[in-house]
């Protein structure tokens, strides 16, 4: 049985990845862009699934990590010439991780709704700082910059086209998925899941629960920051709108729609949400959030386990 499960799982993954690799070659520009964007938002949602689905903490502050990843990358691209891709990724991740460490230190002392509200408030603090510190962050207008080349120093340097960017994002997201999957199946991940199931008992067994939670929030923030860096690379700007708490809300929507505790589910949720948005925005123009909101409410009530909830056990085997 186990062998069969592994075969199906890896074949299925290979087929999906092959389709995603082929996607930019066959799709028109608009859809190519959308698929890349789905992968990026999926990565953000997946990072928050580590908290929601595996540790049982609902973070309403992932926009802060995402946004700091964006601004960190922007800072490196604007300050250092010629712009270096790897430096941008490094600064973006460092910025996101530093913020995540700060937020984690305070917010993990609280639980449930209080954790959600604290993370929400922290993300708003960063929003206000970024929004009002115009000299450094560009304030309301944000920062614009040019995309660096995809270069390995001393070897190759090719400019980013929408296809190579897509492959780069795909590689980053796939790698992140594998790392996150490994994390959730490691002894560390098992402790996180036992915190989700019964925090008091986990503490009684002797695990330092707070420390595990802090590391979980930091890891989650790191991957959210990576998503922010990728989004900055794709769109060549960083804007305060992406630090606003509505982005965190959307991240949770992706998780709930796709199914928490599956890692893949949040990506499916992001795909579902963004496709729905595309579809509805043709009929409802900018008011697409009305039908999307109604569908979201219906899913919270009727399908609380999400689209992939039925496969949760299977995906985590």
């Amino acid at each position: 049985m186990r062998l069969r499960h592994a075969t199906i799982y890896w074949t299925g993954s290979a087929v999906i990845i092959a389709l995603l690799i082929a996607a930019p070659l066959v799709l028109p520009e608009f859809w190519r862009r959308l698929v890349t964007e789905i992968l990026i938002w999926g990565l953000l949602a997946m990072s928050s699934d580590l908290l929601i689905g595996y540790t049982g903490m609902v973070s309403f502050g992932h926009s802060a990590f995402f946004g700091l990843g964006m601004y960190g990358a922007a800072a490196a691209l604007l300050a250092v010439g010629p712009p270096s891709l790897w430096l941008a990724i490094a600064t973006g991740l460092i910025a996101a991780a530093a913020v995540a460490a700060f937020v984690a230190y305070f917010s993990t002392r609280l639980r449930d709704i209080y954790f959600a509200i604290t993370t929400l408030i922290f993300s708003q603090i960063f929003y206000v700082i970024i929004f009002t510190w115009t000299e450094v962050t560009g304030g309301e207008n944000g920062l614009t910059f040019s995309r660096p080349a995809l270069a390995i120093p001393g070897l190759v340097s090719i400019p980013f086209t929408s296809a190579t960017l897509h492959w780069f994002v795909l590689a980053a997201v796939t790698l992140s998925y594998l790392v996150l999957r490994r994390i959730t199946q490691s002894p560390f991940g098992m402790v996180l899941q036992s915190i989700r199931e019964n925090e008091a008992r986990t503490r009684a067994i002797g695990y330092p629960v707070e420390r595990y939670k802090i590391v979980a929030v930091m890891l989650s923030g790191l991957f959210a920051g990576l998503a922010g860096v990728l989004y900055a690379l794709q769109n060549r700007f960083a804007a305060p709108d992406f630090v606003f708490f509505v982005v965190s809300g959307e991240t949770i929507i992706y998780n709930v729609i796709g199914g928490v505790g599956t890692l893949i589910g949040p990506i499916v949720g992001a795909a579902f949400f963004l496709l729905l948005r595309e579809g509805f925005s043709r009929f409802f123009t900018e008011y697409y959030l009305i039908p999307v909101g109604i569908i979201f409410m219906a899913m919270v009530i009727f399908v609380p386990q999400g689209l992939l909830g039925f496969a949760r056990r299977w995906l985590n085997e």
Partner: protein
Amino acid sequence: MEIPLDQLLIQTINGIVTGMILALVASGLTLIFGIMDVVNFAHGELFMLGAYVGVIVLAATGNFWIALMAASLLIALLGAVIYLTTLRPLLGRDPLTTILATFGVSLVLQNYALWQFGPVSRKITEPFSGHFALFYLDYPWYRLAIALLSAAIIGGLWLFLKFSTFGVWIRATTQDRVMAQAMGIPVPWVLTAVFAIGAAMAAASGVLFGPLVGVNPTMGLDWILKAFIVVVVGGMGNLAGSIAASIFISLLEAYASLWVSPAQAIIVSFIVLILTLLFRPTGLFVATPK
């Protein structure tokens, strides 16, 4: 830096006025949270829609007080509908799911307002426009009237909870939902009515606040955040605590805006919230828990 006394006094009055409006918004929120464990993310949107109903009724009738009443009643009805369709099916599930459901409601309502009324700010004219001299300022009477009206509405709520039969039912339901049901109190009705009352209070504060800043589809966002802060700082579900916290935080923000821009002054309230959560998570204005 030297701050002149008159500025300090003006900011004190400003802080109390905003504090009273905030108290009105937050007491609806805290009523809903305390009694039904629902974190109502759509509260700011009810505030905003209430203001819009006020704009429309005011344009039709020309009477501010009719507009205030109509907005409260209509939004109370809307609140009841929202409760019955989205929150009642979630009874008994994790309180976090209520955040998600009401977040969906807020998306829908906010975009509905954008669609119906457009992004441009509308104005509610104040019911009376007198001023009085406050140092070098012409301070509008209406601002003081808001503070008094908010206090009157909150006082009315308190009397209602304390002395009316329905108020007793509400308090009984807060203490023990199952026991209240067993005693013959129509708990489902009580919960619906509480949500409607909370919504009406949000709407009333929206109409009262409208003349100060103008009415637009995103005006609820600022208030919902502040109201959350107040509800947590005051102690979740504690009515008196959230009123005290409203005034406390609004005063701090008003004083902070003497030094920094109002957009940055909100950070002060964030910091108060975080310190409260770290050192006194049950709330600043409640007795020490045993």
